[in-house]
C-alpha cells in the first residue's frame, strides 16, 4: 500500500467535499439533516485520523465533539424543531439544483487552483486538507445563498463551519482552546438561530426568510 496516511486523509477530506455536494442535492429537510449528520461524522473521522497522524491527543477531543455534538445532538434537535413547528418539508431553492451543482463544481476547481498555488511550501496532507476545506467552506456559503429556507441555511452555515474545522486540524498546531471556542460559537449561533426560528414562527407563520423581507417592506 503506497502512502496509506495520505490516501486515507485524501479519502476522508474528499468524502467531505462529496457530502457537501450531497447537501446541495437534497430537496427534503429531513434527508438534509441526515446528510448533515453524515457530514459531521466524516469530519469526525477525518479529525481523528489527523490526531493519529500528528500524534496530537487533543484533536481526539475535537473529533469527539464533532461526533457527539454535530453528528448527533444538532440533527436531532433540528429535527425536533421541524416537527414541532410543522415546517414545510420541502426545500425551496432560489436557483435550480442543476445550476447550483455546476456552480459548486466551479467553486471546487477555484478553491483548488487557489489553495494549491498558495500553499506550495506545506506538507502534502496539509495542502490537500486546506484545498478541500476551502471547497467545503465555499460550498456551505453557496448553500446559504441559494436556499430560501431558514433551516437549510442553518445547515449550510454548519457545513461551512465543518470546513473551517477541517482546515484548522489540517494546519498543525492549532490549540484546543480555539477548538472549544469554535464549538461554542457554533452552539451560540445554533441557539440564536433556534430562537430566531421560533420568533419567525410566531410572527409570520413561516420559516421562509422571504417573509422577513416582506415584513420590512423590501422587495427582492
Amino acid at each position, binding site marked *: 500500500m*503506497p502512502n496509506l496516511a495520505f490516501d486515507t486523509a485524501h479519502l476522508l477530506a474528499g468524502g467531505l467535499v*462529496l457530502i457537501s455536494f450531497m447537501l446541495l442535492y437534497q430537496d427534503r429537510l429531513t434527508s438534509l439533516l441526515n446528510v448533515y449528520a453524515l457530514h459531521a461524522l466524516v469530519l469526525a473521522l477525518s479529525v481523528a485520523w489527523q490526531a493519529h497522524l500528528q500524534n496530537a491527543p487533543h484533536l481526539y477531543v475535537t473529533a469527539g465533539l464533532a461526533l457527539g455534538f454535530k453528528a448527533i445532538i444538532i440533527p436531532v434537535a433540528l429535527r425536533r424543531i421541524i416537527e414541532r413547528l410543522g415546517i414545510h418539508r420541502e426545500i425551496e431553492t432560489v436557483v435550480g439544483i442543476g445550476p447550483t451543482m455546476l456552480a459548486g463544481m466551479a467553486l471546487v476547481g477555484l478553491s483548488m487552483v487557489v489553495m494549491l498555488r498558495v500553499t506550495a511550501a506545506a506538507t502534502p496532507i496539509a495542502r*490537500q486538507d486546506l484545498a*478541500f476545506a476551502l471547497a467545503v467552506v465555499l460550498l456551505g456559503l453557496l448553500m446559504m445563498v441559494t436556499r430560501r429556507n431558514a433551516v437549510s441555511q442553518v445547515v449550510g452555515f454548519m457545513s461551512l463551519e465543518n470546513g473551517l474545522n477541517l482546515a484548522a486540524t489540517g494546519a498543525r498546531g492549532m490549540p484546543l482552546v480555539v477548538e472549544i471556542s469554535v464549538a461554542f460559537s457554533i452552539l451560540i449561533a445554533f441557539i440564536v438561530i433556534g430562537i430566531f426560528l421560533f420568533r419567525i414562527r410566531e410572527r409570520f407563520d413561516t420559516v421562509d426568510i422571504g417573509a422577513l423581507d416582506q415584513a420590512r417592506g423590501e422587495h427582492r
Partner: protein
Amino acid sequence: MALIRDLIVQFFEMSLVLVLAPGLVGLVRKAKARLTRRRGASLLQPYRDLLRLLRKEVVLAENASWLFRVAPYLIFATTWVAAALVPTFATGLLFSWSADLIAVIALLASARFFLALAGMDVGTSFGGIGSSREVMIASLAEPAMLTTVFTLALVAGSTQLSTIVAFMNSPAVGLSVSLGLALFALIIVAIAENARIPVDNPATHLELTMVHEAMVLEYSGRHLALIELASALKLLLYVSLIACIFAPWGLAGAQADAIALLIGAGAYVGKLAVGGVLLAVFETAIAKMRVFRVPQFIGVALMLGLLGTLLRFVSRSF
C-alpha cells in the same frame, strides 16, 4: 499456433457473452420476483422467449422503410462487438486493443442512434416519445460516462481496458476517493443506459413513462428478438465493465493456460450473478422517477465524474 489459440479464446469469449446475456436478464427477473414474494418465471424463460420470437413471422407497419428492417441487425452487431471488447474472464484477448473504452461507449452510442431512428420510422406518437426521451437521457449519460472514463484514465494512465484492469489488479491502486466516485457514477450511468428503475421500467408497457419499450413498440418477430438480445447484451456489458474495473479478481492474463481461463470464467459467472442480484435488490427498493427528475439523477453521475477528476488532480500534484 498461438494465433489460433488466441482466435479460439476470442471466439469463445464472444459466444460466452451471447449465451450468458439472456440468463442475466432471467436472473434479475427471478430475483426481483423472489424479493416481492412471487415465484417468478424460470431462469431459462428469456431464452424461450427469444426462440419463440425467432420462429414467429414479422408484422411490419405499412410505411416502415428499409431502415426499420436493417436497424435491428446493426443495433445487435454494434452492441455485440462492444460487449466482446470488454474483458469478461480474461484480459489481453486478440482483438481487445482494437477499441478502447471511449470507442466502446461510442459503439453503444451508434446502437442507440439507430434505435432512436427506428423509433421515429413508423411515424407513431409512441415511437417519437421514446426516441426523444432516449436521446435526452443519453445526452446526460454519455458525458457522465466519459467523465468517469477521464477519472479512470487519470488513475490508470490509459483508456485501454486491459491496461486499466492490470492496474486495478496491482497493489499500486491504493485507497482513492476518485475511484469510489467513479464507481458510483458508473453505476448510475449503467442504470440509466439500461433503462432500469428508477430511470425507466423494463417491465412496463402502455404507459406514458416508458422510454425504451416505446421505441421498440412496432417491432415483432425476429427483429424484436434481436433487439431484446441486444439490450440483454448491453446489460451484461455494463455489469462486466463494472466487474472488470472494480472487482478484477480472477481475471486470466494475456497468455494464461486453460486452468486460469476456467477459473476466470467461473469467477466471471459468479460476478455476473452477484451483479444481477444486487441490481434486483436496488430496483425493488426504489421507485421510478418522473421523466424530468431523471436529468438531476444522471446529473449527479456527471458531477461525480468531474469531482473525481478534480480530486485526482489534488492527489497527483505531489
